[in-house]
């Protein structure tokens, strides 16, 4: 049991032990969500700010509900209805939120490193809810939580991440978390979206879908991040669906106990066929439930033990 961090900025800097601590803590918080009374007073009197400079529904709602279940007060701050539109800088926005005595600031931003930047001058705890194509730590934690719960282990498993890797912060955080915990990660997708450079992170890179999913224990599907792509990365959506989409035919050539995961939102008929998304091997909705527990655990852990400057970031 080790956790002395004031912030959660990325998975890259966490140890395997710290990741396991989050997962173990999340297991207890998942049990809280299954009770008739789903609320505990752990963050009573604390103020949590959701600072979402990039659109998000499920992550914001998940963090909001997690904070409410811990009895914190929550403020939601979204880019389109904010002073950022009036020309205020991110630093000034964050300083203003801190002037309201916010204890924890959860930030999503399109720029890589935005949470790290805030953590350098804020006294509040900073949690990264996705920064550009860099990292999305709580998504990786909830994915590993789901894998561990279903497979009873992580070390030694074959995990295949299929789709748009280049523009995916989910992929990067998952690669860090899974490899630190001893899983073997395979990446697959169009060659324009899965550069060989990922081999330096210890992953196997292949452009042959059947080879990628044949021995997989987990298939994690990623959406095509159109909003981040600056140019056309493949000819057409239909071609992508045909070459890389998970359908019944491809699934029939995988291990019978393979789990299908997806961070959402899913695009039915593109990266995953509708019937596969709803089949028994899909744990997509379990991921949502587990996300709540993991975010409660993260809020609980970063809140522990800090007078503003006592713990180094």
């Amino acid at each position, binding site marked *: *049991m080790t*956790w*002395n961090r004031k912030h959660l900025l990325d998975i890259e800097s966490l140890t395997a032990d710290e990741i396991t*601590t989050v997962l*173990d*803590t999340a*297991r*207890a*918080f998942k*049990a*809280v969500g299954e*009770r*008739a*009374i789903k*609320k*505990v*007073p*752990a*963050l009573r009197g*604390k103020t949590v700010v959701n600072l979402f400079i990039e659109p998000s529904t499920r992550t914001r709602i998940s963090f909001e509900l997690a904070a409410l279940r*811990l009895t914190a007060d929550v403020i939601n701050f979204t880019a389109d209805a904010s002073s950022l539109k009036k020309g205020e800088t991110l630093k000034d926005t964050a300083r203003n939120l801190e002037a309201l005595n916010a204890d924890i600031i959860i930030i999503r931003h399109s720029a890589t490193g935005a949470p790290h930047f805030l953590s350098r001058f804020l006294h509040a705890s900073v949690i990264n809810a996705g920064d550009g194509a860099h990292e999305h730590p709580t998504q990786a934690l909830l994915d590993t939580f789901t894998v561990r719960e279903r497979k009873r282990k992580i070390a030694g498993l074959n995990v295949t991440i299929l789709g748009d890797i280049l523009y995916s912060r989910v992929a990067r955080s998952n690669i860090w978390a899974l490899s630190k915990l001893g899983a073997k990660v395979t990446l697959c997708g169009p060659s324009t979206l899965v550069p060989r450079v990922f081999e330096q992170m210890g992953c196997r890179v292949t452009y042959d879908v059947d080879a990628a999913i044949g021995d997989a224990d987990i298939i994690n599907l990623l959406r095509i991040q159109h909003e981040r792509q600056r140019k056309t990365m493949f000819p057409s959506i239909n071609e992508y669906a045909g070459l890389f989409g998970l359908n019944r035919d491809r699934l029939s050539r995988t291990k019978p106990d393979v789990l299908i995961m997806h961070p959402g939102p899913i695009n039915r008929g593109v990266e995953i066929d509708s019937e596969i998304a709803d089949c028994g091997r899909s744990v997509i909705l379990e991921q949502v439930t587990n996300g709540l527990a993991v975010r409660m655990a993260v809020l*609980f*852990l970063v*809140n*522990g*033990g*800090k007078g503003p400057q006592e713990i180094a970031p």
Partner: protein
Amino acid sequence: MEPFRYLMPDPTVILNTSSLQRALARIAHEIAERNDLGTEVVLVGVQRGGVHLAQRLANFLSDIWGQAVPVGSLDVGMHRDDLGQQAAPKIRPTVIPFDITGKTVVLVDDVLFSGRTTRAALDALNDFGRPRRIQLAVLVDRGHRELPIKADFVGKNVPTSLSERIDVRLQETDGEDVVYLEKQ
């Protein structure tokens, strides 16, 4: 800490294996005496020192009442009043696989000290239902209460100074049944 144990004054044994066993047997009989309807009693051990003690009391009580007594475990980490003053505590499993509403819940803990853990346990228990009554059983009451809380069943009252430490070692976790009083 362990490697430097030899530097500290010898700890005093306040309960040895047989006196610890007798204390638990007596507490079980007192619980049975106070609650004549065994079917209405459930035991809940407070993580983590109380969990094994609750199981042992349940074994005694099953013999006395001739029926199984439900045992649960409760972690109070999310209900503590010192969160934010120290690093987040390790959360251990809370398992209460029965309905506590209308029952007599006997909370079991190893050491009663400030009373703050018990207060947190009372709050945590509240989230699971509305018991008929809650009673408190502890192996050692060392005094220094900071809240108006009192145990119903006590294995041994031990007057201590604040600088002393009570170390409860149980067969299940430490390989021996003995309670030490250590000077710091």
